[in-house]
Protein backbone atom coordinates (compact mmCIF):
# COMPACT_ATOMS: atom_id res chain seq x y z
CA UNK A 1 0.00 0.00 0.00
CA UNK A 2 1.45 3.35 -0.96
CA UNK A 3 1.05 6.40 1.19
CA UNK A 4 0.24 8.64 -1.75
CA UNK A 5 -3.03 10.42 -1.51
CA UNK A 6 -5.62 8.68 -3.61
CA UNK A 7 -6.14 10.55 -6.86
CA UNK A 8 -9.60 11.92 -7.55
CA UNK A 9 -9.59 9.87 -10.73
CA UNK A 10 -9.62 6.69 -8.68
CA UNK A 11 -12.52 7.95 -6.59
CA UNK A 12 -14.48 9.10 -9.61
CA UNK A 13 -13.98 5.76 -11.30
CA UNK A 14 -15.02 3.84 -8.21
CA UNK A 15 -18.11 5.89 -7.53
CA UNK A 16 -19.19 5.52 -11.14
CA UNK A 17 -18.73 1.74 -11.04
CA UNK A 18 -20.48 1.48 -7.69
CA UNK A 19 -23.48 3.42 -8.95
CA UNK A 20 -23.71 1.14 -11.99
CA UNK A 21 -23.42 -1.92 -9.79
CA UNK A 22 -26.10 -0.90 -7.32
CA UNK A 23 -28.45 0.77 -9.79
CA UNK A 24 -30.61 -2.30 -10.54
CA UNK A 25 -31.15 -2.81 -6.83
CA UNK A 26 -31.96 0.82 -6.27
CA UNK A 27 -34.64 0.49 -8.96
CA UNK A 28 -35.87 -2.71 -7.36
CA UNK A 29 -36.16 -1.07 -3.99
CA UNK A 30 -37.91 2.14 -5.00
CA UNK A 31 -40.25 0.34 -7.37
CA UNK A 32 -41.31 -2.14 -4.73
CA UNK A 33 -42.99 0.68 -2.82
CA UNK A 34 -45.00 1.98 -5.77
CA UNK A 35 -48.39 1.36 -7.19
CA UNK A 36 -48.87 0.94 -10.89
CA UNK A 37 -49.68 4.59 -11.55
CA UNK A 38 -46.58 5.74 -9.71
CA UNK A 39 -44.48 3.42 -11.83
CA UNK A 40 -45.74 5.11 -14.96
CA UNK A 41 -45.47 8.67 -13.73
CA UNK A 42 -42.34 8.60 -11.60
CA UNK A 43 -40.24 5.74 -12.83
CA UNK A 44 -36.75 6.76 -11.84
CA UNK A 45 -37.21 8.36 -8.44
CA UNK A 46 -38.70 7.28 -5.17
CA UNK A 47 -42.35 8.14 -5.22
CA UNK A 48 -44.48 9.15 -2.25
CA UNK A 49 -46.60 7.84 -0.69
CA UNK A 50 -44.60 4.72 -0.07
CA UNK A 51 -46.91 1.77 -0.36
CA UNK A 52 -46.23 -0.65 2.41
CA UNK A 53 -49.27 -2.65 1.35
CA UNK A 54 -47.13 -4.15 -1.41
CA UNK A 55 -44.93 -5.59 1.27
CA UNK A 56 -47.82 -6.74 3.38
CA UNK A 57 -49.33 -8.54 0.43
CA UNK A 58 -46.08 -10.11 -0.66
CA UNK A 59 -45.22 -11.19 2.85
CA UNK A 60 -48.57 -12.85 3.29
CA UNK A 61 -47.96 -14.83 0.15
CA UNK A 62 -44.43 -15.99 0.83
CA UNK A 63 -44.18 -16.20 4.62
CA UNK A 64 -44.65 -19.99 4.91
CA UNK A 65 -42.05 -20.52 2.25
CA UNK A 66 -39.54 -18.34 4.01
CA UNK A 67 -39.93 -20.63 6.98
CA UNK A 68 -39.20 -23.62 4.73
CA UNK A 69 -36.05 -22.03 3.41
CA UNK A 70 -34.81 -21.05 6.86
CA UNK A 71 -35.51 -24.51 8.23
CA UNK A 72 -33.92 -26.36 5.32
CA UNK A 73 -30.85 -24.13 5.18
CA UNK A 74 -30.32 -24.38 8.91
CA UNK A 75 -30.56 -28.16 8.86
CA UNK A 76 -28.08 -28.31 6.01
CA UNK A 77 -25.68 -26.15 8.00
CA UNK A 78 -25.98 -28.24 11.15
CA UNK A 79 -25.69 -31.46 9.18
CA UNK A 80 -22.62 -30.41 7.24
CA UNK A 81 -20.88 -29.11 10.35
CA UNK A 82 -21.47 -32.35 12.20
CA UNK A 83 -20.38 -34.80 9.55
CA UNK A 84 -17.43 -32.80 8.29
CA UNK A 85 -16.06 -31.95 11.73
CA UNK A 86 -16.25 -35.59 12.78
CA UNK A 87 -14.39 -36.58 9.64
CA UNK A 88 -11.81 -33.83 10.02
CA UNK A 89 -11.26 -34.86 13.62
CA UNK A 90 -10.64 -38.37 12.44
CA UNK A 91 -8.03 -37.27 9.94
CA UNK A 92 -6.20 -35.12 12.42
CA UNK A 93 -6.31 -37.33 15.48
CA UNK A 94 -5.84 -40.82 14.16
CA UNK A 95 -3.49 -42.59 11.84
CA UNK A 96 -4.99 -45.61 10.20
CA UNK A 97 -4.32 -47.52 7.01
CA UNK A 98 -5.84 -45.83 4.01
CA UNK A 99 -6.22 -42.48 5.73
CA UNK A 100 -4.78 -40.41 2.90
CA UNK A 101 -6.66 -42.33 0.26
CA UNK A 102 -9.94 -41.77 2.06
CA UNK A 103 -9.25 -38.05 2.38
CA UNK A 104 -8.42 -37.80 -1.30
CA UNK A 105 -11.59 -39.67 -2.05
CA UNK A 106 -13.66 -37.08 -0.22
CA UNK A 107 -11.89 -34.26 -1.99
CA UNK A 108 -12.13 -35.80 -5.42
CA UNK A 109 -15.91 -35.91 -5.12
CA UNK A 110 -15.83 -32.13 -5.35
CA UNK A 111 -14.84 -32.51 -8.98
CA UNK A 112 -18.14 -34.06 -9.93
CA UNK A 113 -20.35 -31.36 -11.40
CA UNK A 114 -23.88 -30.91 -10.18
CA UNK A 115 -25.62 -31.41 -13.49
CA UNK A 116 -24.23 -34.92 -13.82
CA UNK A 117 -25.80 -35.96 -10.55
CA UNK A 118 -29.07 -34.13 -11.00
CA UNK A 119 -30.99 -36.95 -12.63
CA UNK A 120 -29.60 -39.92 -10.68
CA UNK A 121 -30.10 -38.01 -7.41
CA UNK A 122 -33.67 -37.33 -8.41
CA UNK A 123 -34.26 -41.00 -9.17
CA UNK A 124 -32.64 -41.98 -5.88
CA UNK A 125 -34.68 -39.56 -3.82
CA UNK A 126 -37.80 -40.73 -5.61
CA UNK A 127 -36.98 -44.35 -4.81
CA UNK A 128 -36.38 -43.49 -1.16
CA UNK A 129 -39.76 -41.76 -1.03
CA UNK A 130 -38.08 -38.51 -0.12
CA UNK A 131 -39.59 -36.33 -2.82
CA UNK A 132 -41.48 -33.43 -1.29
CA UNK A 133 -39.96 -34.06 2.11
CA UNK A 134 -37.61 -31.98 4.16
CA UNK A 135 -35.08 -34.83 4.17
CA UNK A 136 -35.05 -34.79 0.39
CA UNK A 137 -34.20 -31.10 0.49
CA UNK A 138 -31.54 -31.46 3.14
CA UNK A 139 -29.41 -34.51 2.40
CA UNK A 140 -28.34 -33.96 -1.22
CA UNK A 141 -27.15 -30.39 -0.54
CA UNK A 142 -25.38 -31.74 2.53
CA UNK A 143 -23.46 -34.08 0.27
CA UNK A 144 -22.46 -31.15 -1.88
CA UNK A 145 -21.15 -29.14 1.02
CA UNK A 146 -19.42 -31.95 2.89
CA UNK A 147 -16.22 -32.25 0.85
CA UNK A 148 -15.25 -28.60 1.03
CA UNK A 149 -16.27 -28.41 4.67
CA UNK A 150 -14.15 -31.43 5.60
CA UNK A 151 -11.19 -29.89 3.83
CA UNK A 152 -11.58 -26.55 5.60
CA UNK A 153 -12.13 -28.13 8.99
CA UNK A 154 -9.18 -30.43 8.70
CA UNK A 155 -6.91 -27.52 7.78
CA UNK A 156 -8.10 -25.64 10.84
CA UNK A 157 -7.93 -28.59 13.23
CA UNK A 158 -4.33 -29.22 12.29
CA UNK A 159 -3.53 -25.86 13.81
CA UNK A 160 -4.74 -26.90 17.23
CA UNK A 161 -1.76 -27.78 19.45
CA UNK A 162 -1.43 -31.54 19.75
CA UNK A 163 -0.21 -31.14 23.32
CA UNK A 164 -3.63 -29.88 24.30
CA UNK A 165 -5.33 -32.97 22.94
CA UNK A 166 -2.74 -35.35 24.36
CA UNK A 167 -3.05 -33.78 27.79
CA UNK A 168 -6.78 -34.45 27.76
CA UNK A 169 -6.08 -37.95 26.60
CA UNK A 170 -3.80 -38.71 29.53
CA UNK A 171 -6.46 -37.37 31.86
CA UNK A 172 -8.68 -40.16 30.60
CA UNK A 173 -10.98 -38.16 28.36
CA UNK A 174 -12.63 -40.20 25.64
CA UNK A 175 -12.13 -39.26 22.01
CA UNK A 176 -15.67 -38.03 21.91
CA UNK A 177 -15.04 -35.73 24.90
CA UNK A 178 -11.92 -34.32 23.32
CA UNK A 179 -13.81 -33.64 20.11
CA UNK A 180 -16.81 -32.07 21.74
CA UNK A 181 -15.28 -30.15 24.62
CA UNK A 182 -11.94 -29.06 23.26
CA UNK A 183 -11.68 -29.14 19.50
CA UNK A 184 -15.11 -27.80 18.57
CA UNK A 185 -15.19 -24.81 20.94
CA UNK A 186 -11.77 -23.79 19.66
CA UNK A 187 -12.93 -24.00 16.07
CA UNK A 188 -15.58 -21.32 15.98
CA UNK A 189 -13.95 -19.40 13.08
CA UNK A 190 -13.99 -22.34 10.70
CA UNK A 191 -17.42 -23.38 11.91
CA UNK A 192 -18.65 -19.88 11.10
CA UNK A 193 -17.12 -20.09 7.65
CA UNK A 194 -18.71 -23.44 6.91
CA UNK A 195 -22.02 -22.23 8.31
CA UNK A 196 -22.07 -19.15 6.12
CA UNK A 197 -21.07 -21.01 2.98
CA UNK A 198 -23.72 -23.64 3.39
CA UNK A 199 -26.45 -21.33 4.56
CA UNK A 200 -25.90 -19.20 1.46
CA UNK A 201 -25.90 -22.27 -0.75
CA UNK A 202 -29.05 -23.59 0.88
CA UNK A 203 -30.88 -20.30 0.48
CA UNK A 204 -29.85 -19.99 -3.14
CA UNK A 205 -30.73 -23.52 -4.15
CA UNK A 206 -33.08 -23.38 -7.11
CA UNK A 207 -32.75 -26.32 -9.46
CA UNK A 208 -32.85 -29.02 -6.83
CA UNK A 209 -36.05 -27.85 -5.10
CA UNK A 210 -37.55 -27.18 -8.51
CA UNK A 211 -36.98 -30.78 -9.45
CA UNK A 212 -37.57 -32.51 -6.13
CA UNK A 213 -40.67 -30.73 -4.87
CA UNK A 214 -44.14 -30.22 -6.17
CA UNK A 215 -46.82 -28.29 -4.37
CA UNK A 216 -46.37 -26.15 -1.36
CA UNK A 217 -45.43 -28.35 1.56
CA UNK A 218 -41.66 -27.95 1.48
CA UNK A 219 -41.34 -25.35 -1.22
CA UNK A 220 -38.55 -22.89 -0.48
CA UNK A 221 -39.15 -19.19 -0.90
CA UNK A 222 -36.96 -18.95 -3.95
CA UNK A 223 -39.45 -21.02 -5.92
CA UNK A 224 -42.42 -19.04 -4.71
CA UNK A 225 -41.20 -15.72 -6.00
CA UNK A 226 -42.50 -16.03 -9.52
CA UNK A 227 -46.01 -16.75 -8.28
CA UNK A 228 -46.43 -13.64 -6.18
CA UNK A 229 -49.23 -11.48 -7.55
CA UNK A 230 -50.74 -8.13 -6.79
CA UNK A 231 -53.94 -6.34 -7.58
CA UNK A 232 -54.32 -4.34 -10.76
CA UNK A 233 -53.60 -1.20 -8.78
CA UNK A 234 -50.44 -2.55 -7.34
CA UNK A 235 -49.01 -3.98 -10.51
CA UNK A 236 -45.78 -5.89 -10.51
CA UNK A 237 -44.46 -4.08 -7.49
CA UNK A 238 -45.82 -6.70 -5.14
CA UNK A 239 -43.60 -9.22 -6.86
CA UNK A 240 -40.66 -6.84 -6.52
CA UNK A 241 -41.48 -6.45 -2.83
CA UNK A 242 -41.31 -10.24 -2.61
CA UNK A 243 -37.82 -10.18 -4.07
CA UNK A 244 -36.70 -7.62 -1.51
CA UNK A 245 -38.22 -9.51 1.40
CA UNK A 246 -36.49 -12.72 0.32
CA UNK A 247 -33.13 -11.00 0.18
CA UNK A 248 -33.39 -9.31 3.55
CA UNK A 249 -32.27 -12.17 5.81
CA UNK A 250 -29.09 -12.73 3.85
CA UNK A 251 -28.40 -9.02 3.62
CA UNK A 252 -28.96 -8.62 7.36
CA UNK A 253 -26.62 -11.52 8.00
CA UNK A 254 -24.07 -9.92 5.71
CA UNK A 255 -24.08 -6.49 7.31
CA UNK A 256 -24.01 -7.88 10.82
CA UNK A 257 -21.13 -10.24 10.18
CA UNK A 258 -19.34 -8.81 7.18
CA UNK A 259 -15.83 -10.00 7.91
CA UNK A 260 -16.66 -13.68 8.45
CA UNK A 261 -19.02 -13.50 5.51
CA UNK A 262 -16.37 -12.29 3.10
CA UNK A 263 -13.72 -14.67 4.35
CA UNK A 264 -16.23 -17.48 4.15
CA UNK A 265 -17.07 -16.79 0.55
CA UNK A 266 -13.45 -16.51 -0.51
CA UNK A 267 -12.31 -19.67 1.22
CA UNK A 268 -15.17 -21.50 -0.39
CA UNK A 269 -13.90 -20.59 -3.81
CA UNK A 270 -10.32 -21.63 -3.30
CA UNK A 271 -10.16 -25.33 -3.98
CA UNK A 272 -7.45 -27.37 -2.31
Amino acid at each position, binding site marked *: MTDRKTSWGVYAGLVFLLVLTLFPFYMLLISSFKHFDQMILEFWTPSFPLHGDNYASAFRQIAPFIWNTVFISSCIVVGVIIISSLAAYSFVRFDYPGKNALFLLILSLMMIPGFLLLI*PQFMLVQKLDMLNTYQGQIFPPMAFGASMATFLMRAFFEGIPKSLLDAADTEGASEWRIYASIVMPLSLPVIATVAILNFLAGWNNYIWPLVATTGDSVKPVILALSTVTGTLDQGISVKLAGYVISSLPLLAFFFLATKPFISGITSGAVKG
Partner: protein
Amino acid sequence: MSASLARLRRNWKGYLFLIPVFAVLASFKFIPFFDALRMSMYDWNGANVKSYVGLANFKELVRDATFLDSLGNVAGFTFAAVIIQLIVPLIAAVLVFHVTNRKLQQFFKVWFVVPLVIPSIIVFLTWQWIFAGEYGVLNEFLKVVGLESWTHAWLGESKTAFTSIVFVNFPWIGGINFLLYLAGLMTISGELFEVAKLDGMNAWQRFKHIELPLVRSQIKLILVLTLINQIQSFENVLVLTNGGPGTSTMTPALYLYIQGFSYSRLGYASAIGVTLFAAVLLLTWVNQRFIRDTDKID
Protein backbone atom coordinates in the same frame (compact mmCIF):
# COMPACT_ATOMS: atom_id res chain seq x y z
CA MET B 1 2.34 -56.35 8.32
CA SER B 2 2.21 -56.32 12.09
CA ALA B 3 3.11 -52.63 12.16
CA SER B 4 0.01 -51.98 10.08
CA LEU B 5 -2.03 -54.16 12.34
CA ALA B 6 -0.76 -52.34 15.41
CA ARG B 7 -1.69 -49.04 13.79
CA LEU B 8 -5.11 -50.45 13.11
CA ARG B 9 -5.66 -51.63 16.63
CA ARG B 10 -4.72 -48.28 18.10
CA ASN B 11 -6.53 -46.14 15.56
CA TRP B 12 -9.65 -48.04 14.60
CA LYS B 13 -11.83 -45.40 16.19
CA GLY B 14 -10.76 -43.11 13.38
CA TYR B 15 -12.93 -45.10 11.02
CA LEU B 16 -15.93 -44.57 13.26
CA PHE B 17 -15.68 -40.83 13.00
CA LEU B 18 -15.69 -41.16 9.24
CA ILE B 19 -18.90 -43.09 9.05
CA PRO B 20 -21.35 -40.16 9.00
CA VAL B 21 -19.61 -38.28 6.19
CA PHE B 22 -19.16 -41.36 4.09
CA ALA B 23 -22.73 -42.44 4.64
CA VAL B 24 -23.96 -39.17 3.20
CA LEU B 25 -21.37 -38.96 0.43
CA ALA B 26 -21.76 -42.55 -0.62
CA SER B 27 -25.53 -42.35 -0.86
CA PHE B 28 -25.87 -38.96 -2.44
CA LYS B 29 -22.74 -38.53 -4.53
CA PHE B 30 -20.95 -41.76 -5.11
CA ILE B 31 -23.89 -43.91 -6.04
CA PRO B 32 -25.55 -41.28 -8.23
CA PHE B 33 -22.24 -40.72 -9.99
CA PHE B 34 -21.94 -44.33 -11.05
CA ASP B 35 -25.61 -44.40 -11.84
CA ALA B 36 -25.11 -41.49 -14.21
CA LEU B 37 -22.31 -43.32 -15.99
CA ARG B 38 -24.41 -46.41 -16.25
CA MET B 39 -27.57 -44.59 -17.31
CA SER B 40 -25.80 -42.92 -20.19
CA MET B 41 -25.74 -46.27 -21.93
CA TYR B 42 -29.41 -47.01 -21.56
CA ASP B 43 -32.56 -45.86 -23.16
CA TRP B 44 -34.68 -45.12 -20.14
CA ASN B 45 -37.70 -43.02 -19.44
CA GLY B 46 -37.76 -43.54 -15.72
CA ALA B 47 -40.82 -45.74 -15.76
CA ASN B 48 -41.14 -48.74 -18.02
CA VAL B 49 -38.71 -48.45 -20.88
CA LYS B 50 -35.20 -49.47 -19.88
CA SER B 51 -32.91 -51.13 -22.38
CA TYR B 52 -29.18 -51.24 -22.83
CA VAL B 53 -28.10 -49.36 -25.94
CA GLY B 54 -24.36 -49.08 -25.55
CA LEU B 55 -22.99 -45.97 -27.16
CA ALA B 56 -26.11 -45.16 -29.16
CA ASN B 57 -26.91 -42.12 -27.01
CA PHE B 58 -23.48 -40.69 -27.65
CA LYS B 59 -23.73 -41.36 -31.36
CA GLU B 60 -27.05 -39.54 -31.46
CA LEU B 61 -25.61 -36.69 -29.41
CA VAL B 62 -22.88 -35.98 -31.91
CA ARG B 63 -25.45 -35.45 -34.62
CA ASP B 64 -27.97 -33.57 -32.47
CA ALA B 65 -28.36 -30.07 -33.87
CA THR B 66 -29.66 -28.56 -30.64
CA PHE B 67 -26.77 -30.05 -28.71
CA LEU B 68 -24.26 -28.71 -31.19
CA ASP B 69 -25.91 -25.29 -31.03
CA SER B 70 -25.70 -25.45 -27.26
CA LEU B 71 -22.00 -26.24 -27.45
CA GLY B 72 -21.46 -23.18 -29.59
CA ASN B 73 -23.48 -21.06 -27.17
CA VAL B 74 -21.68 -22.25 -24.06
CA ALA B 75 -18.36 -21.63 -25.81
CA GLY B 76 -19.55 -18.12 -26.58
CA PHE B 77 -20.81 -17.49 -23.05
CA THR B 78 -17.60 -18.86 -21.59
CA PHE B 79 -15.41 -16.80 -23.87
CA ALA B 80 -17.31 -13.63 -23.02
CA ALA B 81 -17.32 -14.45 -19.32
CA VAL B 82 -13.60 -15.14 -19.24
CA ILE B 83 -12.72 -11.90 -21.00
CA ILE B 84 -15.05 -9.92 -18.75
CA GLN B 85 -13.98 -11.60 -15.51
CA LEU B 86 -10.31 -11.18 -16.30
CA ILE B 87 -10.68 -7.47 -16.91
CA VAL B 88 -13.50 -5.70 -15.11
CA PRO B 89 -13.28 -7.06 -11.55
CA LEU B 90 -9.50 -6.77 -11.74
CA ILE B 91 -9.68 -3.09 -12.65
CA ALA B 92 -12.18 -2.49 -9.86
CA ALA B 93 -9.97 -4.38 -7.40
CA VAL B 94 -6.90 -2.38 -8.39
CA LEU B 95 -8.85 0.86 -7.95
CA VAL B 96 -10.14 -0.18 -4.54
CA PHE B 97 -6.69 -1.40 -3.57
CA HIS B 98 -5.28 2.06 -4.15
CA VAL B 99 -7.76 3.85 -1.94
CA THR B 100 -5.57 5.01 0.93
CA ASN B 101 -8.29 5.74 3.46
CA ARG B 102 -8.94 2.42 5.22
CA LYS B 103 -12.55 3.15 6.06
CA LEU B 104 -13.38 4.22 2.53
CA GLN B 105 -11.66 1.18 1.15
CA GLN B 106 -13.75 -1.05 3.36
CA PHE B 107 -16.85 0.85 2.32
CA PHE B 108 -16.22 0.24 -1.36
CA LYS B 109 -15.29 -3.37 -0.75
CA VAL B 110 -18.48 -4.09 1.16
CA TRP B 111 -20.84 -2.33 -1.22
CA PHE B 112 -19.36 -3.85 -4.36
CA VAL B 113 -20.05 -7.26 -2.88
CA VAL B 114 -23.74 -6.69 -2.11
CA PRO B 115 -24.96 -8.26 -5.39
CA LEU B 116 -23.20 -11.44 -4.34
CA VAL B 117 -25.24 -11.66 -1.16
CA ILE B 118 -28.58 -11.29 -2.87
CA PRO B 119 -29.88 -14.70 -3.93
CA SER B 120 -28.83 -15.33 -7.50
CA ILE B 121 -32.33 -16.09 -8.69
CA ILE B 122 -33.45 -12.69 -7.46
CA VAL B 123 -30.62 -11.08 -9.36
CA PHE B 124 -31.75 -12.92 -12.52
CA LEU B 125 -35.40 -11.98 -11.94
CA THR B 126 -34.39 -8.35 -11.44
CA TRP B 127 -32.50 -8.41 -14.71
CA GLN B 128 -35.45 -10.08 -16.35
CA TRP B 129 -37.44 -7.01 -15.32
CA ILE B 130 -34.69 -4.75 -16.65
CA PHE B 131 -34.77 -6.48 -20.02
CA ALA B 132 -38.56 -6.73 -20.18
CA GLY B 133 -40.12 -5.68 -23.45
CA GLU B 134 -43.01 -3.79 -21.84
CA TYR B 135 -42.02 -1.26 -19.17
CA GLY B 136 -38.63 -2.86 -18.70
CA VAL B 137 -36.05 -0.59 -17.13
CA LEU B 138 -33.72 -0.65 -20.11
CA ASN B 139 -36.43 0.21 -22.59
CA GLU B 140 -37.73 2.98 -20.34
CA PHE B 141 -34.21 4.37 -20.19
CA LEU B 142 -33.86 4.34 -23.95
CA LYS B 143 -37.18 6.15 -24.28
CA VAL B 144 -36.08 8.80 -21.81
CA VAL B 145 -32.87 9.54 -23.69
CA GLY B 146 -34.68 9.70 -26.98
CA LEU B 147 -33.50 6.35 -28.36
CA GLU B 148 -36.93 4.77 -28.55
CA SER B 149 -36.09 3.11 -31.83
CA TRP B 150 -33.51 1.05 -30.03
CA THR B 151 -35.97 -0.65 -27.74
CA HIS B 152 -36.31 -4.39 -28.09
CA ALA B 153 -37.81 -7.39 -26.44
CA TRP B 154 -34.29 -8.12 -25.30
CA LEU B 155 -34.81 -11.62 -24.08
CA GLY B 156 -37.41 -12.50 -26.67
CA GLU B 157 -35.51 -11.85 -29.87
CA SER B 158 -32.90 -14.29 -31.06
CA LYS B 159 -30.52 -11.53 -32.11
CA THR B 160 -30.41 -9.89 -28.69
CA ALA B 161 -31.10 -12.70 -26.24
CA PHE B 162 -27.56 -14.06 -26.14
CA THR B 163 -25.95 -10.68 -25.55
CA SER B 164 -28.57 -9.77 -22.98
CA ILE B 165 -27.68 -12.81 -20.95
CA VAL B 166 -24.01 -11.88 -21.12
CA PHE B 167 -24.93 -8.43 -19.82
CA VAL B 168 -26.74 -9.72 -16.77
CA ASN B 169 -25.06 -8.34 -13.66
CA PHE B 170 -23.39 -5.55 -15.60
CA PRO B 171 -20.92 -4.09 -14.62
CA TRP B 172 -19.86 -7.55 -13.55
CA ILE B 173 -17.98 -6.48 -10.47
CA GLY B 174 -20.27 -7.67 -7.69
CA GLY B 175 -18.88 -11.10 -7.30
CA ILE B 176 -16.31 -13.29 -5.79
CA ASN B 177 -13.64 -12.67 -8.40
CA PHE B 178 -13.39 -9.06 -7.26
CA LEU B 179 -12.70 -10.29 -3.72
CA LEU B 180 -10.15 -12.80 -4.94
CA TYR B 181 -8.24 -10.20 -6.94
CA LEU B 182 -8.28 -7.83 -3.98
CA ALA B 183 -6.99 -10.54 -1.67
CA GLY B 184 -4.21 -11.27 -4.14
CA LEU B 185 -3.21 -7.64 -4.45
CA MET B 186 -3.04 -7.35 -0.69
CA THR B 187 -0.46 -10.08 -0.46
CA ILE B 188 2.00 -8.23 -2.68
CA SER B 189 4.91 -7.14 -0.54
CA GLY B 190 4.91 -3.46 0.33
CA GLU B 191 8.58 -3.30 -0.53
CA LEU B 192 7.85 -3.75 -4.20
CA PHE B 193 5.65 -0.68 -4.15
CA GLU B 194 8.37 1.30 -2.37
CA VAL B 195 10.78 0.36 -5.12
CA ALA B 196 8.23 1.33 -7.73
CA LYS B 197 7.81 4.73 -6.16
CA LEU B 198 11.57 5.25 -5.99
CA ASP B 199 11.89 4.21 -9.60
CA GLY B 200 9.28 6.78 -10.51
CA MET B 201 6.85 4.30 -12.03
CA ASN B 202 3.49 5.66 -13.06
CA ALA B 203 0.27 3.80 -12.38
CA TRP B 204 0.19 1.93 -15.67
CA GLN B 205 3.81 0.74 -15.32
CA ARG B 206 3.14 -0.30 -11.76
CA PHE B 207 0.16 -2.31 -12.93
CA LYS B 208 2.00 -3.95 -15.77
CA HIS B 209 5.19 -4.88 -13.93
CA ILE B 210 4.10 -5.53 -10.38
CA GLU B 211 0.40 -5.95 -9.87
CA LEU B 212 -0.51 -7.97 -12.93
CA PRO B 213 2.25 -10.60 -12.75
CA LEU B 214 1.76 -11.11 -9.04
CA VAL B 215 -1.95 -11.84 -9.28
CA ARG B 216 -1.29 -14.64 -11.70
CA SER B 217 -2.40 -17.27 -9.19
CA GLN B 218 -5.71 -15.49 -8.80
CA ILE B 219 -6.09 -15.16 -12.56
CA LYS B 220 -5.51 -18.86 -12.99
CA LEU B 221 -8.00 -19.70 -10.27
CA ILE B 222 -10.59 -17.33 -11.67
CA LEU B 223 -10.09 -18.77 -15.12
CA VAL B 224 -10.89 -22.24 -13.83
CA LEU B 225 -13.79 -21.06 -11.71
CA THR B 226 -15.31 -19.09 -14.58
CA LEU B 227 -14.96 -21.99 -16.99
CA ILE B 228 -16.47 -24.48 -14.62
CA ASN B 229 -19.21 -22.11 -13.61
CA GLN B 230 -20.21 -21.33 -17.18
CA ILE B 231 -20.39 -24.95 -18.17
CA GLN B 232 -22.23 -26.06 -15.08
CA SER B 233 -24.78 -23.44 -14.28
CA PHE B 234 -27.87 -22.97 -16.30
CA GLU B 235 -30.16 -21.28 -13.84
CA ASN B 236 -29.68 -17.93 -15.50
CA VAL B 237 -30.69 -19.22 -18.91
CA LEU B 238 -33.50 -21.30 -17.46
CA VAL B 239 -35.04 -18.34 -15.67
CA LEU B 240 -34.41 -15.74 -18.36
CA THR B 241 -35.06 -17.48 -21.66
CA ASN B 242 -35.32 -21.23 -21.18
CA GLY B 243 -32.87 -21.64 -24.02
CA GLY B 244 -34.86 -19.64 -26.50
CA PRO B 245 -35.81 -18.08 -28.69
CA GLY B 246 -35.23 -21.19 -30.74
CA THR B 247 -31.88 -22.43 -29.59
CA SER B 248 -30.10 -19.10 -29.48
CA THR B 249 -29.36 -19.31 -25.77
CA MET B 250 -29.47 -23.04 -25.19
CA THR B 251 -26.59 -24.43 -23.15
CA PRO B 252 -25.61 -28.10 -22.75
CA ALA B 253 -26.47 -28.24 -19.05
CA LEU B 254 -29.89 -26.75 -19.73
CA TYR B 255 -30.36 -29.22 -22.56
CA LEU B 256 -29.60 -32.01 -20.13
CA TYR B 257 -32.24 -30.68 -17.78
CA ILE B 258 -34.84 -30.38 -20.51
CA GLN B 259 -34.12 -33.82 -21.98
CA GLY B 260 -34.29 -35.38 -18.56
CA PHE B 261 -37.24 -33.61 -17.00
CA SER B 262 -39.36 -32.41 -19.90
CA TYR B 263 -38.85 -35.33 -22.24
CA SER B 264 -38.02 -38.04 -19.71
CA ARG B 265 -35.08 -39.20 -21.81
CA LEU B 266 -32.99 -40.05 -18.80
CA GLY B 267 -30.39 -42.11 -20.61
CA TYR B 268 -29.83 -39.47 -23.24
CA ALA B 269 -29.62 -36.74 -20.61
CA SER B 270 -27.02 -38.75 -18.71
CA ALA B 271 -25.00 -39.10 -21.89
CA ILE B 272 -25.00 -35.30 -22.16
CA GLY B 273 -23.83 -35.14 -18.55
CA VAL B 274 -21.01 -37.59 -19.06
CA THR B 275 -19.80 -35.78 -22.15
CA LEU B 276 -19.81 -32.42 -20.40
CA PHE B 277 -18.02 -33.88 -17.40
CA ALA B 278 -15.26 -35.20 -19.65
CA ALA B 279 -14.95 -31.76 -21.22
CA VAL B 280 -14.65 -30.08 -17.82
CA LEU B 281 -11.95 -32.54 -16.73
CA LEU B 282 -10.04 -31.89 -19.91
CA LEU B 283 -10.21 -28.12 -19.53
CA THR B 284 -9.15 -28.25 -15.88
CA TRP B 285 -6.19 -30.42 -16.81
CA VAL B 286 -5.19 -28.02 -19.58
CA ASN B 287 -5.41 -25.09 -17.20
CA GLN B 288 -3.28 -26.87 -14.61
CA ARG B 289 -0.70 -27.90 -17.12
CA PHE B 290 -0.20 -24.77 -19.14
CA ILE B 291 -0.63 -21.77 -16.89
CA ARG B 292 2.04 -21.07 -14.32
CA ASP B 293 1.28 -20.28 -10.70
CA THR B 294 2.47 -17.08 -9.07
CA ASP B 295 4.59 -18.96 -6.54
CA LYS B 296 6.60 -20.47 -9.31
CA ILE B 297 7.54 -17.07 -10.65
CA ASP B 298 10.48 -15.59 -8.82
